[in-house]
């Protein structure tokens, strides 16, 4: 059996965070989570996750700042793929996120938990959704 993929969920809303923790755990992922930007960045740098789900409106440090710091860091985590998983749908933010190196942008409200899981799985299968979400979310 292949080693479980490790996912880091950075999300401040307790219910939403536990919702995603729950569904990913059930799908066999190792789940690590953080409730604010600062904590999220620390875990991103130390946990060696395979993928990071990152919210934008976060306490202490915003998701965009976390993404910036992560991509600037010299640790191997710099290359960890980041999906933004947020409820902010402004075009400018989405563009900024992709410019900073995010690989996906998911709008929480438009997707049910299992759809988010499929998006992540599709990513690991090599299907990129970047173009679609860029347009769909505007």
């Amino acid at each position, binding site marked *: 059996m292949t080693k479980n993929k490790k996912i880091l969920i950075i999300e401040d809303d307790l*219910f939403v965070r536990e*919702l995603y923790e*729950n569904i990913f755990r059930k799908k066999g992922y190792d789940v690590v989570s953080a409730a604010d930007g600062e904590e999220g960045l620390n875990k991103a740098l130390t946990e060696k996750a395979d993928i990071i789900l990152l919210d934008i409106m976060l306490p202490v440090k915003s998701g965009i700042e976390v993404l910036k710091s992560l991509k600037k860091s010299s640790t191997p985590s710099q290359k960890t793929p980041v999906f933004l998983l947020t409820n902010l749908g402004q*075009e400018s933010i989405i563009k900024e996120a992709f410019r900073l190196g995010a690989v996906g942008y998911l709008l*929480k*409200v438009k997707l049910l938990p299992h759809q988010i899981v499929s998006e992540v799985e599709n990513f690991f299968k090599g299907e990129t959704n970047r173009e679609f979400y860029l347009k769909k979310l*505007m």
Partner: protein
Amino acid sequence: MILENRPDEIPRLKRYESFFEAVTWAVITSAYALSWLMPDEAVNLFLINSIVLVATASAIVFYRILPFEKRTGSFIFTFRLKAFIIGILNIIMISVFILGTGGIKSPFWYLYLLSPLSAALYFPSWAIATLTTWAVILYLITIFYISPYLGIPYFTTDFPVSIFTMVTAVFFVVILAYSQAKELTIESERNIKLVNEVTGERNKLSTVLESVADGVFALDYKRRVVFINKSMEDLLGAAEKDLIGKEADLVFKFYNGDRRVNATEFCPLKKVANDTVVYEGSSLKFLNRSKKEIFLNLASTAPSKGPLIDVGCIVVIHNVSKERELEAMKLDFVSIAAHELRTPITSARGYLSILEQELKNKLKPEERNFLERAQISTDQLSSLVENLLDVSRIEKGAIKLDITKIQIEELIEKIVDNYKEAASQKGIALGYIRNKIKMPPVAIDKFRISEVLSNLISNAVTYTSKGRVEVRTSVQKGFVVTSVKDTGEGIPAEAIPNLFTKFFRVSGLLEQGSKGTGLGLYISKAIVDLHSGKIWVESELGRGSTFYFRVPIHQSKNYL
């Protein structure tokens, strides 16, 4: 004018006016008569002199009553001209008077000085010089030619007579001086009144204009500032004295979006028969003195009498920043509220979906129904929030189309597929009936038009209980028209005009447990309008409705 600065003197002088007028003429006549009673031979000349004197005096009185600035034909009878004529008549009268009272030996010859003296009060130097010359010439003529020729005797210098004549002369000079001063008073008073009236009127008007809350300014025919009111000064943060005479383009910097609106545009210097609005701009951008961006509506009028007063245009400016702010706040409130609502909705929908997956087979039918209803409700809540966000974006003008060349058939096929299941569950046939000819590619934003299609098809499926929903496409003068035809209830004719407005729902349909938010068609219309397309509906009660929308065919030059 000497009395212009002493308006307080006027009432006092006025009180004695009639009295002095009467006394003046009484004294003139009696002094003259008296001078003729002294010598013996002059009785024959008395009549002629009297006639000359009375005629001159009447002329003076006539000219005094004549209002100044009287127009007779093209001739303007000005105050100056009038005063000049009175001055000359005075000199003639005095000449006759001196002549009658002894020529060179007359004690009254000082009166000659009176005319130049009084003229000095209110005439320019040329007039004083003329009157003085006249007086001197007349005086010389009187002594050297007329008096000897007429054989007028010199006055005897008997003591009582001398005293009498000297006293009369002094009195006469005083009276005449007063008379001139009175003339002056009347005119100055009239002038002061006029000046007050004019300035009062001007003050009233400029106070009104000054105090108008809107900015007002006027430009001349060289587009220079000739008037500017307080509000406009405040907007610019500069004082009137620094602005008057400046070129408009250096002072007013309005922008329509990013495009500068120059004075040539808002003040085109048109010649007009009636006052005409020559430019109207709404929500023009303008940087105020603290470099803050404000928005204003501008209306520029060309006055028909502009050329007479050298005013090319009058511009009124209304600050609409507040309104825009409120509007923006309203929209922001909606979008913030919608964003805040997204998190709990995400959570509720997420948990419900997990619950459903885990309990699917363990629930009693009734319980499954409850869960389903909870899911439907949260989905409804979710689409309401999303629609509200869409509306706020539309109204903010934040929606930007990403136009590409699209084959609309494929798009329709996809969307129709999405609703096949829902339709078959209701027992409705749903299908896309392709046109025999292939549709030309259209220039659209794929995702936005998908929204429109989804909306129309989902409405058709929702509001049709039996029969079919058919989607068709056709070509029409540069457009591809897509129609969604249903066999539902139909829409009452009176509801059709409101169908595409916000939160409108056809009454009666609500009771059927419809899921609409009342925003779908509004959003669809906004999207189609953004494509320079058109959306409309044809409906017959009881037989069904057909919704149409058209989008432009992709042109090769259409490289958007």
